[in-house]
Every structure is written in structure tokens, then in C-alpha cells.
């Protein structure tokens, strides 16, 4: 592919200078090697070094460059530029406070993640080498442990928009099930108690925006369904 010019419309907001956010129209010439949206953002940053966004690994592992791309949350480093309709509209992840341009304050998101105790709880003395699992038990963790906490899912969820302080959100609930499903974990009851709440778990109304946007192809709705199934099993 040869050189091409791509049109952008980017959400800009610098709370020190701007009274309110605005959309900046800007175009950039890309080389044939620029294939992902993040490549274009790097070029844009060279044009206007005020444009602010997070990035790190540039290969869909760190989860830093999540943003709202043409109305849908995704990772800039995994999105093909040529698959996008122009002008490409870039906005910060919805529902979280904006720090500057495409950078949002993730405090609320991580607070919810921490609230589900995202670590193995096992009170047995640690074995000499490692806690073993059968391959079948390990299989259950596939589709759960891969989450990179980019927040694409939780910030596309209306229930999280309305109650970010009370609803754990799809990312947190996927992580919660990751530990509920782990045969080495001993805190199943406490974890279920922690989630059995009209806000924390039952705000999920299964609209599946989370599944639609997950850049890693994970399914938080399915995990949430399994948590509810565990609760039913426990109660009925």
C-alpha cells in the first residue's frame, strides 16, 4: 500500500487551558508500513505534540491504549486503520472522568477490580514447589485469565455508567469468576457472599456490550452467568 492521507476528528480537552472539550479535525499522511491506529496516533503526535493518550506495549498486551474509536471501544494498537470509516472519530473511554484528551481516570475501574480480591486465597501451607491443578481444572481458566484490564468492556456497559461506584462491572466480574473457577482457591463462599448484592452483581442485565467490544475476544457475560449459576447451586 502506498502513502495515504487519513482524516481524524479527535476529542481534545486540557483542563488547564480549555473551558470545555472540543473535537479537533486533523489529517495525517501515513506510510505504507502504518497499519494500526496507534501508528497513526504516533504520526499525529509528531504533528501536534499536545495530543495526549496512553500507550505502552503497542501489541495488545498492556491494555493502555483503549479508547472509543468511531463510537466503539477498542485498543488503538489492534485496530486496522483501513477498516475504519473516515473521519476516524477518537474519544476517551465513556463514563470515566477525563484527565486530558484521550486519557481517563481509571481509579473507579481499578477500585472495583480490587474489591473482588483478584488473587488466590489459599490458607494451606505453601507446598515446596507449586499448587498443582489437573489439566481439566486448568482448562476452566481459559477465557478468563487473558483479561488485560483495558476497561473497554466496563466503560461500554450502561450499568457501569450509571453505578460505577457500586456495580463491579464486566471486567471485575470476569476476574471474580477467574478466582471462583480456580480449584486452588479456598474462598469460594466469601467471594459469592461479596458479590451477592443487587448492585455489585445483579446490575448486569445481560446486554452483552462487553462481549461486543472485548479486544481479547473474552466473554464477561458468560462468566457472570456462571457466577449466577454458582449462586443458584448454593441457594437452591
Amino acid at each position, binding site marked *: 500500500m502506498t502513502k495515504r492521507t487519513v482524516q481524524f476528528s479527535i476529542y481534545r480537552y486540557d483542563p488547564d487551558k480549555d473551558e470545555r472539550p472540543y473535537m479537533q479535525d486533523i489529517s495525517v499522511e501515513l506510510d505504507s508500513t502504518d497499519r494500526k491506529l496507534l501508528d497513526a496516533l504516533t504520526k499525529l503526535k509528531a504533528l501536534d505534540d499536545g495530543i495526549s493518550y496512553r500507550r505502552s506495549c503497542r501489541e495488545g498486551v498492556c491494555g493502555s491504549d483503549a479508547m472509543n474509536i468511531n463510537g466503539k471501544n477498542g485498543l488503538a494498537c489492534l485496530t486496522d486503520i483501513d477498516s475504519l470509516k473516515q473521519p476516524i472519530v477518537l474519544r476517551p473511554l465513556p463514563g470515566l472522568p477525563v484527565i486530558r484528551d484521550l486519557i481517563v481516570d481509571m481509579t473507579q475501574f481499578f477500585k472495583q477490580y480490587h474489591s473482588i480480591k483478584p488473587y488466590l486465597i489459599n490458607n494451606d501451607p505453601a507446598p515446596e514447589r507449586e499448587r498443582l491443578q489437573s489439566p481439566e481444572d486448568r482448562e476452566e481458566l481459559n477465557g478468563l485469565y487473558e483479561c488485560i484490564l483495558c476497561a473497554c468492556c466496563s466503560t461500554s456497559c450502561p450499568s457501569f455508567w*450509571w453505578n460505577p461506584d457500586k456495580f463491579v462491572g464486566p471486567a471485575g466480574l470476569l476476574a471474580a469468576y477467574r478466582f471462583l473457577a480456580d480449584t486452588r482457591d479456598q474462598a469460594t463462599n466469601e467471594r459469592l457472599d461479596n458479590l451477592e*448484592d*443487587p448492585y455489585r452483581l*445483579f446490575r448486569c442485565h445481560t446486554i452483552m456490550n462487553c462481549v461486543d467490544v472485548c479486544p481479547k475476544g473474552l466473554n464477561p457475560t458468560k462468566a457472570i452467568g456462571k457466577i*449466577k449459576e454458582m449462586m443458584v447451586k448454593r441457594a437452591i
Partner: protein
Amino acid sequence: MVNRIVVGAHYGLKDWIAQRATAVVMAVYTALIVAVILVARPADFEAWRAIFAHGFIKFASFLFALSLFYHAWIGMRDLWMDYIKPTGLRLALHVLTILALVGYAGWAASILWRL
């Protein structure tokens, strides 16, 4: 009182199950009543009245109404929880919703058994 975020009411599972169970009741009733109407083909008021005068249809209709009201309670409560932030106002709306739905249930019974 300090303004801290408090969660952990430890309910919700029963409502979640009830929402599904009542939905099944409503779906089955809808299929049943459509079938009954298709078979009976009531042409006038008397024929309609005869359908609902039947004991089983009365029972099924009342069950449907109760399912609808319970289902509506969970749905309305969810709406208030999402959009109404002041606790006092939310509590008032919860109470009003319950009163209205209980009233509707009584009204449904009176309509069905007055026939």
C-alpha cells in the same frame, strides 16, 4: 453521617430467579390464551365472558397477573436503582411502586371474580 459508598445488601439472587420464573409463566399463559381464543373464536361479549368465567382460565389469568406484577416490581426497582440517586426519594418510589402493584393485583382479582 459520613457519606461512604456502602454495598453488600446480600439479596438479589431470589429476584433474579423470580424474574426468570415469572417470565416463563407469562410466556406460557400468552401461548395458552392465544390458543384458547383461536379455538373458541369469541364473536361477542358473552363469548369472551364465557372464556374467562371458566375456573381454570380465571386461575391462569390471575397467576399471569401476579407474575406480571412481580416481574414489573423487579424491573421498576431496577429503574429506580439506576436513575434515582437520593436514597429518600428512591425509598418513596419503591413504596409507591409496591402499593400500586399490590393495588393492581387486588383490582385484577376483583375483575376476574366479578365475572
